[in-house]
């Protein structure tokens, strides 16, 4: 009898990037984590920056002046893109977690089929939706004034 003696999660963080014949969904998972970490880092700073409004108009305007300029505009757009991806991919993850759109269980008869093939259209749809949001955001940030 085989006994599992190794540590779980042998690949560690490197396992986020690869480690097998993984489909596109695995890389969506990696991107979901990376965008989540980015959004969390931004959010923790955002709490302090936006707290300035509690001290009145001049404190607020000073805080906003500190985070203005091309660098911060690009950073803010990156946050918007991360939000668009993380939110819409998150909807997909919850839908799948609830067992929706994963297909019915089938007997493992060769040639084997994977549930991931059933889930693929959902992944494509949500990525298209995220892309639409990213483009709309880009228009709002950089084109329409």
């Amino acid at each position, binding site marked *: 009898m085989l006994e599992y003696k190794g540590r779980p*999660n042998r690949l560690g963080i490197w396992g986020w990037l690869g480690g097998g014949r993984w489909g596109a969904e695995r890389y969506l998972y990696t991107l979901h984590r990376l965008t989540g970490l980015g959004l969390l880092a931004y*959010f923790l700073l955002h709490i302090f920056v936006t707290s300035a*409004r509690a001290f*009145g108009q001049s404190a607020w305007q000073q805080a906003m002046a500190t985070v203005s300029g091309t660098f911060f505009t690009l950073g803010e757009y990156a946050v*918007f893109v991360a*939000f668009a991806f993380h939110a819409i991919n998150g909807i997909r993850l919850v839908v799948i977690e609830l067992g929706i759109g994963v297909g019915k269980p089938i007997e493992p008869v060769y040639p084997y089929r994977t549930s991931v093939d059933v889930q693929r259209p959902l992944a494509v749809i949500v990525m298209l939706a995220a892309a639409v949001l990213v483009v709309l955001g880009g*228009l709002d940030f950089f084109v329409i*004034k």
Partner: protein
Amino acid sequence: MRDQRWWTWHIAASAVILVFLGLHMVVMHLEAIIGIFNPHGGHPIEWANVVERAKSAFFMVTYIVLLGAALFHGLYGLRNMLFELNPGSGAKKGLNLLFVVGGLALFVIGAWAAYAGYQVAITQSAAAAAL
């Protein structure tokens, strides 16, 4: 069992975030296309627009709800990623303590700022109306 319950809260928090952060993103970053809750026009971060939103009890409450949901969702997500790396039991306890204490401290700061901002906005609006 306890982790399963926390995971359910993690998912529930994501639904709250989707609604309120979605609204926040539309207000703040799609203002030229959709343009809601910016009654004075211009950029959403202009003080007049900030006051208009901040004096609304709806915004004050939703900011605090969003703050709590986002802190829980984000910090619990980060905790799970770190726990996947198999830290020792002492490190796990330390991380749990750090996230609980740090998360609560950030919640108190953010909730205070939302409430104080609400008070500032109400005072300023009342002063402007009296003129």
